[in-house]
């Protein structure tokens, strides 16, 4: 407990020392102060809290992190050292480097259709009214220590604004890159607003390459206005040294449609909190997830679907393949409030454990206060189907390949939901490679972190 206290103390001290700097933007002054107070009261989560019962933060919190406060000039050419290898994926790209929006020329890009992709810091200065209306409105800093912590320190992140009646012609891709030689704690903050009748496809890739332990505590709020549609893809392929707490809040208004896909291929420690508030009638919500973990990786998916208004449908499928000594946690909660009559809510979590030491703790929860609803939930934990394995082997397929095909087939249900075709093909390949044991984080990366030599970039690291 001593070390916990140390990181917490360090955080509190860092806040008070940097308070003036952090509170430069007037609008955030009150919010940050409130948030740090809540964080102080809550402290870091521990295993006695139901939401953290199966996921130990001890290992993550005992590292000594430096807390990124210094201002950054994000004017760097990310293309110099990073390329996305989904070559057919034609997107508008926004890069977060160590939590800062990295841009080539301008921190604010305005597309022809009026869509804005910008650094959150700059957006606060340029469009304070839009930001204020939504910033911090969907997360809960009183209850969640990490959200309070992010809110207290968040300096930058991605801001996306899609005006009403706009169908964004290409997906917007957020790439979060973390690359530092020291242990760092970074806290990006993203805000996405999708206007009435608009459509957005958002691909969020986390690529964390680190030589030393890092902790990312990201918080993303996504507002989906009436009759709007959002396709959200979260791709996680992180280094084993890294820890990531990724919290996403979706807020849906009437007649809106949301599809969120969380695909975890690798990750040292990952906790995904995916929260959806269905605050309007006739909404459709689909939450899909795949997690493939091995070694000593830990993946924890917490989802919360809150049916506030009637006549909406939510559907959730999370599937995991857990190998070696890896640990997985799934906790899915569906809340159907009293007013949310005629709700359809379905949830499944299916897991395959490949070894005796691999673990999954799964907890599907339904909490229903309305009396005219159709809801179901369920979880399965199993091994690969022996009948199918024998069938395949009897056709000459080796045991390893048969297992691979079965695992691949297991994930297929979720992969087929991906509506961006090049992305789906790439994920197919990645999952295939991953299941063959061929994909490590290094395959993806041009930086070669795996080697002992320090990485040399053609950019001025002091500026980041």
């Amino acid at each position: 407990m001593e070390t916990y206290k140390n990181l917490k103390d360090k955080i509190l001290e860092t806040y008070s020392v940097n308070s003036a700097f952090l509170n430069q933007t007037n609008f955030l002054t009150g919010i940050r102060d409130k948030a740090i107070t809540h964080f102080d009261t809550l402290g870091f989560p521990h295993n006695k809290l139901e939401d953290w019962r199966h996921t130990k933060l001890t290992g993550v919190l005992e590292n000594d992190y430096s807390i990124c406060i210094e201002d950054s000039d994000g004017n760097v050419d990310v293309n110099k050292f990073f390329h996305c290898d989904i070559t057919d994926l034609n997107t508008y790209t926004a890069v977060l480097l160590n939590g800062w929006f990295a841009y080539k020329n301008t921190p604010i890009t305005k597309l022809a259709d009026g869509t804005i992709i910008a650094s959150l810091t700059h957006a606060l200065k340029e469009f304070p009214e839009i930001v204020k209306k939504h910033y911090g409105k969907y997360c809960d800093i009183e209850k969640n220590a990490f959200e309070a912590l992010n809110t207290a320190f968040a300096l930058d992140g991605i801001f996306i604004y899609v005006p009403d009646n706009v169908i964004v012609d290409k997906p917007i891709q957020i790439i979060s890159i973390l690359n530092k030689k020291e242990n760092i704690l970074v806290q990006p903050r993203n805000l996405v607003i999708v206007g009435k009748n608009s459509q957005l496809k958002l691909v969020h890739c986390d690529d964390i390459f680190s030589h030393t332990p890092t902790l990312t505590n990201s918080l993303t709020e996504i507002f989906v206005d009436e009759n709007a549609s959002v396709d959200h893809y979260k791709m996680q392929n992180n280094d084993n040294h890294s820890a990531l707490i990724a919290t996403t809040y979706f807020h849906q208004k009437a007649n809106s449609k949301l599809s969120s896909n969380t695909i975890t291929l690798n990750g040292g420690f990952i906790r995904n909190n995916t929260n959806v508030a269905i605050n309007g009638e006739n909404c459709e919500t689909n939450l899909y997830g795949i997690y493939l973990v091995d070694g000593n990786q830990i993946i924890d998916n917490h989802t919360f679907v809150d049916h506030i208004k009637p006549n909406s449908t939510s559907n959730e499928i999370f599937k995991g393949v857990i190998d070696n000594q890896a640990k997985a946690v799934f906790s899915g909660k569906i809340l159907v409030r009293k007013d949310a009559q005629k709700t359809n809510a379905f949830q499944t979590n299916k897991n395959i454990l490949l070894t005796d030491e691999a673990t999954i703790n799964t907890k599907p929860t339904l909490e229903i206060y309305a009396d005219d609803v159709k809801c179901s939930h369920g979880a399965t934990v199993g091994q690969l189907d022996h009948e199918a394995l024998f069938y395949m082997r009897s056709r000459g397929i080796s045991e390893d390949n048969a297992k691979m095909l079965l695992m691949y087939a297991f994930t297929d249900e979720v992969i087929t939901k991906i509506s961006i075709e090049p992305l789906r093909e790439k994920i197919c390949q990645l999952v295939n490679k991953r299941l063959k044991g061929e994909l490590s984080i290094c395959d993806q990366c041009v930086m070669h972190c795996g080697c002992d030599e320090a990485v040399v970039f053609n950019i001025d690291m002091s500026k980041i």
Partner: protein
Amino acid sequence: MLSIKNLKVSINGKKIINGFNLEVKAGEVHAIMGPNGTGKSTLASAIAGKENYVITEGSILYKGKNLFDMAPEIRSREGIFLGFQYPVEIPGVSITNFMKTAVNEHRKYKGLEPLTGSAFLKLMEEKKKVVELQAKLSNRSVNEGFSGGEKKKNEIFQMAMLEPSLAILDETDSGLDIDALRIVANGVNKLRTKDNAFIVITHYQRLLDYIIPDFVHVMYDGRIVKSGGKELAFELEEKGYDWIKKELEEKST
């Protein structure tokens, strides 16, 4: 090709096969008939190498090699094929992918280069004709949502793709209508050569109208109790299995 001597097989401690003997030579078709629960399917699964089947006694030599030394996939690559009574559904694995993996593993075992995508598709098109398989079937998951007939056709299609030396068809006729039965049987006949052999397990003489066997064996209580030519099948169809049971009882007393 196949020589089974005094085979005894147990599942979970229960004796299913009890002193089974059979010799199969290249070019032959053997039919194994018999009432339910006499060990016909167990025999088929034991030859294919299913786990949990404990061989307590006896031997199976295939092309002179001890079959028990081989994993199921090796048996397949060595030319043994089992047509399943209940083909397994594998959601998410396409027939194309499944067969491509299988064919290329067979080729690798023989020291051949893997087939190119187009060569493989050509082979598939060619073999699909053997069982009048519809084109769209190949893009579907293995056996998922297939009708009984489609599943059995798919088994024969796989057999055509893998060109085994010894095929064991376990009640391939069960659940088939007359048309499907004819198609499946024709498929088998097209694949018959002087170099390969078939063991056809069936309850009914009906299938043997289409696939003419060289030998008919009656299996009872885990072993062959009567063997004969194809006329034995007619006799069984007419009289049922009771007369054989009676014969056995008389013998024992």
